[in-house]
């Protein structure tokens, strides 16, 4: 990927603006990371609590650059057959069956077994050639002509073995297939790895990546995000709801609400034609923000105080 092909990524400011036009409001740090990843051709390891827009980041870049997004969702037991490539065994077997009759023609005139085998050798490894190769996401990303965004999602869910598999791809952008040889990327893809920190990623992998940690956004940033994602919510309600979510994040919860939940909540409030927050409204829509029964219970007892605080704050300002 070169700068002349993608003027959208020429500077940090341009990236910020480009993202904004696609409704992704980001901090300067995120834009810097994207800029560096593009300039230095390095993968980015994105970490942060769930729901802060890690996956969304990769999707937005694909939109911005108008190149395909290839996504590999990691899970326990993911192996190279599902991530890199696989031979089309069924096709291979079918072809051997169909071509069985042809064998006679081919071996015509051959004297003895040795000569027949020698004749067969002339055909080489047709059954292990590109036609019989089933590309999986990683190989597919290497084959894209115009380059691609490769998103390796939740890499912490995969096994350690899989991480080692990634090392060659991430540092040299190539894949070794024993039967064929080394396949180099046609155009270097931009790689994003996301992690929720359920386990430590190995140092070898971290070393090859730029490390981007996305925390929960500040009140101002989150308000901007809501404005861009749910533009119909009026300003007063937007301010209230963002403040309320921020105060929820201060509580000791099993799963704190993330940006995606704030957006969902803003949408539901809009549907309910709410003009401002009140206790009853919050109570009935709390299940949009909180995903555990015990969280909802523990918050309900403090709800009155939380909502009142928001209203008092607003009147004071």
């Amino acid at each position, binding site marked *: 990927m070169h700068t002349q092909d993608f003027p959208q990524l020429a500077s*940090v400011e341009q990236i910020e603006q480009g993202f904004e036009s696609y409704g992704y409001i980001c901090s*300067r*740090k995120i834009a*810097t*990371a994207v*800029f*560096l990843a593009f*300039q*230095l051709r*390095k993968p*980015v390891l994105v*970490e942060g609590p769930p729901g802060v827009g890690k996956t969304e980041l990769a999707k937005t870049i694909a939109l911005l650059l108008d190149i395909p997004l290839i996504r590999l969702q990691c899970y*326990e*037991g993911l*192996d190279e*057959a599902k991530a890199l490539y696989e*031979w089309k*065994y*069924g096709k291979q*077997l079918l072809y051997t*069956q169909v071509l069985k009759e042809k064998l006679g023609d081919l071996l015509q005139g051959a004297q003895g077994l040795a000569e027949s085998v020698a004749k067969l050798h002339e055909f080489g490894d047709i059954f292990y050639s590109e036609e019989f190769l089933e590309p999986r996401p990683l190989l597919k990303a290497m084959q894209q002509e115009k380059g691609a965004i490769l998103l390796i999602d939740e890499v912490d869910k995969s*096994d*350690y*073995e899989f991480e080692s598999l990634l090392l060659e791809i991430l540092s040299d952008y190539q894949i070794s297939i024993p039967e064929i040889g080394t396949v180099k990327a046609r155009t270097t893809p931009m790689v994003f790895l996301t992690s929720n920190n359920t386990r*430590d990623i*190995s*140092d070898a992998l*971290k*070393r090859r990546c*730029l*490390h*981007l*940690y996305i925390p929960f956004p500040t009140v101002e940033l989150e308000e901007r995000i809501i404005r861009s994602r749910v533009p119909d919510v009026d300003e007063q309600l937007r301010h209230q709801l963002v403040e309320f979510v921020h105060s929820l994040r201060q509580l000791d919860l099993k799963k704190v609400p993330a940006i995606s939940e704030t957006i969902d909540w803003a949408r539901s409030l809009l549907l309910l034609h709410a003009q401002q927050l009140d206790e009853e409204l919050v109570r009935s829509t709390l299940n949009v923000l909180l995903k555990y029964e015990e969280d909802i219970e523990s918050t309900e007892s403090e709800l009155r105080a939380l909502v009142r605080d928001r209203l008092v704050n607003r009147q004071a300002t």
Partner: protein
Amino acid sequence: MQSSLVSFIQVLRTHDVRISPAETLDAVDVAATLGYSDRSLLRDGLAMTLAKTPEEEVIFMHCFERFFQQDLANFSASEIPATSMEEQGLSPPANAERLAADYTAAQIAALHLAAETNPTLQALLQSTLMQRLVGNVRTELTLAINQAAERVGLQQIQLFTQKGQFTRRILDAMGEETIRNAVISLEQAESPALAVLQRYRDILREQVRDYVEREYLLYAEGKTRQFMDDILSKTRLNNIEHIYLHKVQELIRKMAKKLASRHSRKRKLLKRGRLDMAKTLRKGIPNDGVMFNTYWRQVRKEKPQILAVCDVSGSVAAYAKFLLLFLYSLQDVLPKVRSFAFSSHLGEVSAYFDDYPVEKAIELVNWKYGGATDYGSSLMDFAKLAMDDINSNTTVIILGDARNNNGDPKLEILQSIYQRARQVIWLNPESRRAWGSGDSEMLRYQSACHFSAECNNLKQLERIVDQLLKSTR
């Protein structure tokens, strides 16, 4: 600028941020791409290559601020004695600035007046150092301190006791001596300008002291900690003072984590592997050679198991605390560890380790199983509890001094364990020379162990356990 980037990375390393040479190269690339003009942009960019966890990022930000902050405090205006304001009866805020200027000018005039009769002071006032001080040219003064610090090798500072020494050396390198001489000569002449000059001297000293302090925090804080860790991990465990216990706990935890991340991989019994061609062909025979189904090679992985037995009797009490701590951490990080403790009788303690925090668990174990040692009956208990579980995948680790109070060692039990298990390992805190002396049964037990070693400090423990985990793969 590149060299200062490298020394910044040096600083990060002393603060326990691990940075490889390759990452250093990345950082140089980042700096070249982003340029040095936008400070916060550069900071964020460098953080992405150098800090790999949120914790490291905090350390990074901290160090970045300290390393690239080189301003000295403004010392001209703040130094006016409060009394002089009251004397003039002025309201402080309104006239403070003008007053400060007046005050400084008056002082400088006093100095020049005194200089007319004093050649030493005359020479001093001509010197660049004094001119910078009097003129309050902070940037140049900072630069001078920086250069002096480089000349005396301040970056080598390691211990806080060296702070005074380095302050002195920097002052000497900057030519503070001339001020000192002038002060002495003014003192002898009982000149009124003495107080003024003394004040300038103190300002300079204070600035240098602050500077050294800051650099010490930057360079030596990490070094001191590394030094401590190093010493602690080489000290015999029963000699470590009580006050360092919590530090050791931390070390052990770090060590166990390191070992675990190196060795704890999830193992799966079955995994779809490569195509099993032979089987696929064979199974195709009933269908006239048409291969309807594909068959896959299955990979079978062994599940290793570790049984750890720890002596907690009085004779090894100080030692046992650490071993239990280690067992605790190990059980935390490895999936299949069963822990046992004994002195006169033996019991399984895995449940304590699972259910309670470390201090509480160790206390409970000591309280329940502490006492006089009886290896014979403990081995019998162990056989009863765990013998059925011991198979060719089991590693048995015994931690103890093998001092049996002249009781029956029941060697035959250990021998039968030896025959069943994949590995029996005995770690003894006593030095090899003491094995077999007095009531020690070590030499006899040793005959029924695959491996026995002396182990009385953390370094040895780590090395042995590392080997052990490698072989249990």
